């Protein structure tokens, strides 16, 4: 066991795989000698050299397109999008080319790549540098979507993402970079598609990812302490593949579902989870299905406004308490 920051776990996860497989290469803006603007690739340039850790111009279409071309021809590229908002600049490459080419060619083409990105809000960066875009990717068939909440998950899921033979969108949450956590010693690997029940409970199921996991956990502790409500918290870890069974199994026990999403309200990943349960888990439900989300607005930059926009521990706890009471 060693204690690592979430930030350091990113570089450690990449380093583990670059050590293991010479076909793993990285490209992105300022990722080389500078170690990335969030210092997420620190040390990799020194260790693996400029051929394997390449700086690029500000050319997101070329970065992601080049990663695709390299993935089709024998490499396992990792491309960094500095902020996840910049996926929009290269969305054609992601949604139309990378996601669809295997299917369109009936499997002739494999695209084993990872698109890493600093995702999410909380840093007062404003609407164009704070988005949570997991739901953008989830809506596109052909993309896998990973959004870890702990250093250990970052390392283990990074290994799985890099070894995966399909394209993976790997969301590193900006607001979690400084958190610390235990990472087991030795090679890390956590398969994609396995949720973690991070707090067992019996009164309701709370589903979250990334920065919403610690908030959901804190809310659950508060509910336990203040109201005797015993909430189960599930960290999905990956949205695609989705551990639907873990959710359905939990809701079968608790009969109540809450999702906690950072993205704006409409068509978020929470809507997908709710819809799944509203269909397949309907008969085990005894209360409305509730999504706790950022309102359907762009994220504001001022601290008080941003804090009010994103689901907070307060809002999560209050919503769960209120809705459980209402359903009594």
């Amino acid at each position, binding site marked *: 066991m060693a204690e690592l920051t979430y930030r350091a776990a990113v570089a450690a996860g990449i380093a583990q795989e670059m050590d293991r497989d010479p076909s793993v290469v990285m490209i992105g803006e300022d990722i080389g000698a500078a170690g990335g603007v969030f210092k997420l690739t620190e040390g990799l340039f020194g260790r693996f050299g400029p051929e394997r850790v390449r700086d690029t111009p500000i*050319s997101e*279409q070329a970065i992601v397109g*080049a990663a695709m*071309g*390299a993935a*089709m021809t024998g490499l396992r590229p990792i491309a960094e999008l500095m902020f996840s908002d910049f996926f929009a600049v290269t969305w054609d490459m992601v949604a139309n080319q990378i996601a669809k080419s*295997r299917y369109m060619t009936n*499997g002739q083409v494999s695209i084993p790549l990872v698109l890493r990105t600093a995702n999410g809000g909380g840093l007062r960066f404003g609407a164009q540098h704070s988005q949570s875009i997991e739901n953008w990717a989830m809506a596109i*068939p052909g993309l896998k979507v990973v959004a870890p909440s702990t250093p250990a998950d970052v390392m283990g899921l990074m290994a799985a993402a890099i070894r995966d033979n399909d394209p993976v969108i790997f969301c590193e949450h900006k607001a979690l970079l400084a958190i610390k956590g235990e990472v087991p010693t030795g090679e890390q690997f956590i398969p994609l598609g396995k949720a973690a029940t991070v707090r067992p409970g019996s009164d309701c199921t709370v589903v979250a990812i990334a920065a919403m996991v610690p908030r959901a956990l804190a809310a659950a502790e508060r509910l336990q302490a203040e109201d005797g409500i015993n909430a189960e918290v599930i960290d999905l870890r990956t949205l695609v*593949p989705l551990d639907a069974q873990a959710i359905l199994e939990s809701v079968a026990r608790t009969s109540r579902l809450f999702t906690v999403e950072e993205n704006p309200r409409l068509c978020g990943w929470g809507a997908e989870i709710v819809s799944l349960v509203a269909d397949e888990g309907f008969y085990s439900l005894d209360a409305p299905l509730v999504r706790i989300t950022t309102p359907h607005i762009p994220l504001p930059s001022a601290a008080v406004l941003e804090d009010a926009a994103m689901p907070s521990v307060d809002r999560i706890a209050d919503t769960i308490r209120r809705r459980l009471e209402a359903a009594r």
Partner: protein
Amino acid sequence: MSTQRPTAAAPALETRLAIYRTMAECRQFEARAQELFFEGLVRGTTHLGIGQEAVAAGVAAAMRTDDYTFCTYRGHNHTLARGVPMAPIFAELFGRGTGLLGGKGGSMHLTSVEHGVMGSYAIIGAHLPIALGAAWSAQYRKSGQVALCFFGDGTTNIGAFHEALNMAAVWKAPVVFVCENNQYMEYTPIGSVTAVPRPAADRASAYGLEPIVVDGNDPDAVYAIARTAIDRARAGDGPSLIEALTYRHGGHSRADPGKYRPDEEVKAWLARDPLPMYRARLLAEGASEVALAAIDDETRGSVAEAEQEARSAPEPSLDVLETQVWSDGGSAWRN
């Protein structure tokens, strides 16, 4: 036309006959495909390269078998030129289960990895960065492969063009960008939407590259220029950007009659039809009428045979609908 006259001697007769055969195959295949579109057998859309065969054929003859081709929705010629058999291409156009893509991609996405055809791309500009990526991969793997990337004049005005050219130049990637300037982006004359007269060549200097313009209806000239660029790329000297001047005889796609083009312009280009021009030149420069006629006839035979094979192929089985989203062959997104 102020095009670069290749200084190299013409390629060997054998090469030239191979080029001629490719051009004949492209022409006959596409002419038939168009008829079959009007018969309703070819579904969806098609974009024909009739009139532009010399570019695909000339470049392909200069490639190594393990080099990569990246082309567009107007990609039948480039696909055929790499030796992909006609029957699965027809079958793909017909939407049959034996199609090159199992019926999943259609005319715009022809791909045959085993022939180095890494895809036909239908969203303008996207494949330039992707081709650069394949070149980067070859460079990293030290495989000596070169990526050839074909696109149209209209494509030079989209952002991805700019990004790919700059990054390829900075990385000295072994990629050759070939702009087939057929004078039109769909129905709009390229000159009316482009700030410079030569949409590709006049941009080359923006990437530190030489401007290269070639007569795209002269396969020998194309071959020579391509050879130089490919050798240069393979030697580690970086990318090239070639502008090949040519013309599509028909419309942009499907049933477009191409009426937005002045009659004299069409007439002038038809008079420079690369097929009869090249045939005449080969005859004049030592090929026998017998040999050329044999190529014409054999091609007619292959096209007819391929069409029959594709016609009698079954529709895709519905079992394949949800396969090949993922590398495990399936499409499951949940447990």
